[in-house]
């Protein structure tokens, strides 16, 4: 049962390589979405469907959509229309689309096959993840919350609009 795993991994590596070699942000983001989808499939095939779902919901869903929107909003202006039209030429979207179709094919194959598709032959249900997180690893969850607090406070301070700081920058 290793073939789907290998294909998904290859797609992940190829798309990530494309992310870091693109010079246009939007092209890179399209590949990054494919990369996250393929990583999610890798997780699924390793027997961790819960993490696979989170990967799609949080990364490919929320965070990436936010990225794409920010990038597009930065380009508001008269020339943005022509620019967006340029983004729609086939050579921009064929690469990610081909990779995405490969992943879709795998997904269909997984749905069609009956059980035992994961590499180890077993899956970890979401309930077990919850029991582990709020049982022995409760402190880990608390530590993660402190980590988020540090990130939020830092980002809040650095991203704040402040008068006295601007005066200093003008100096």
């Amino acid at each position: 049962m290793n073939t789907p795993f290998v294909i998904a991994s290859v797609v992940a590596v190829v798309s990530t390589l494309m992310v870091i070699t693109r010079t246009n942000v939007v092209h890179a983001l399209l590949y990054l979405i494919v990369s996250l989808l393929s990583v999610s499939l890798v997780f699924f095939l390793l027997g961790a469907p819960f993490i696979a779902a989170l990967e799609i919901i949080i990364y490919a869903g929320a965070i990436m959509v936010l990225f794409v929107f920010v990038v597009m909003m930065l380009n508001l202006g008269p020339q943005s229309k022509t620019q967006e039209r340029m983004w729609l030429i086939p050579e921009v979207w064929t690469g990610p689309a081909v990779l995405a179709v490969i992943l879709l094919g795998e997904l269909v194959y997984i749905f069609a096959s009956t059980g035992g598709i994961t590499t180890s032959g077993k899956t970890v249900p979401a309930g077990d993840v919850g029991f582990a997180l709020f049982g022995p690893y409760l402190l880990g969850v608390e530590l993660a919350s402190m980590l988020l607090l540090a990130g939020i406070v830092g980002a809040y301070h650095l991203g704040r609009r402040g008068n006295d700081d601007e005066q200093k920058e003008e100096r």
Partner: protein
Amino acid sequence: MTTNDFYALSPLLAVGAAALAVMIGISVKRSMTATAGLTVAGLFVSFAMLFPAASIAPRIVTPLLVIDGYALFYMGLVLAGTLTVVLLSLEYLRDRGAHPEEYYILLLLAAFGSMTLVASRHFGSLFLGLEILSVSLYGLIAYVRGNEKGIEAGIKYLVLAAVSAAFLVFGMALVYTATGSLEFSRIGAGATPTDPLFLAGAAMIIVGMGFKLAVVPFHLWTPDVYEGAPAPVTAFIATVSKGAVFALLLRLAGPFHILDHPTLFTVFSVIAVGSIFAGNLLALSQGNIKRILAYSSIAHLGYLLVAFLAGGVKGATAATYYLSAYFVTTLGAFGVISLRSGRDREREYIHDYRGLAWRRPWLAGVFTAMLLSLAGIPLTAGFIGKFYAISAGVGSSLWFQVVSVAIGSAIGLFYYLRVISVMYAQPERHSGGRQAVARAISFGGGMILALLTLGLILLGVWPSPLIGLITRAVSGMN
């Protein structure tokens, strides 16, 4: 979680609660004095809680943390270091305008991360502790937003720390594949040191931790970040952040068979000797005191690694003592720089210190003591630290490494004495007017420097109480 578990964790919980209390306090009313007071109170409470925790140590709390004498000793060191940094920051931040309050949340969280690190017995808490520390430091390094060098340093640290964290996580995954566990003790039991998978994982973990320790070849970020970060934050990075990671390295030495595996031993020897020479030689040509201290910290980590390589209780004691002495000395040196920094810029160039001894004899005296301790001159803490490191090295017949320590110290003496000689030179006439406006040192700042100097000399002439404490703490490490 039983009541005793909460007792054991209470130092950690106190610092976490202090961070939350400071945050809520800021949202009610912005007041620098109240915020700093709350922070200091939180650190004191946490320090006081070390004693009830020590009465029930050693105790394993969940698979993630272990509260033993060793962890509690390092927690005390982290708390004392953080407290000094908080007190040094007061004036520095007051001069730099807007919104100084969040600084204290980030500092408390960084201390929280460091305390998690020194108490961790599981890769999960190791990684989370390290990330809490790093993420807080991103904000702290770039805290003064008007300072372009600070922003640059923050971004450099962010990118490099993220890459090193990726190495660390990949290394953990490989070790997990090889041994089937994330707990240090079970890794030690399950590891076969010749397994290439295990070795590759260990190497990647060394890369991740080497970055944090700023040892050669992972040291390139150090001078830039030291120079760009606010002086009190630099003091924190140099002491607490490195000390916590080093404590973790000592804890990992057993499970990873670092000292009895020839390849890993050679790797650490090369890192140690490389750090000693690269740090000392690169410091020679610097004109900026923060950069000199950055390179000197690279060299000092090399000396520490020699003590670490000596192994056993003796090596761990020597390394821990060296680290304690290094804490006092480095905090003192950066304390002088922070307290001397004016409203416009930090006094970080050597020529800013020309003739300091004639205008501020006490301040120059403190700085001289700190630099002599860094150089390892007798009667200072640095001398005893180096003495123990060398004797531990000799005890384990690490001749090559010990000779490197000696040569490195000789080179180091040159640039420390260069700074001292500038301080005692006659002040330049034409710049006298500009220098005269430099502000006076406040009473509080002076008190901290006096205490640090006292500690420096006390550790240098009467080290036995601390050595006894450290030996007890280290021999109880599991």
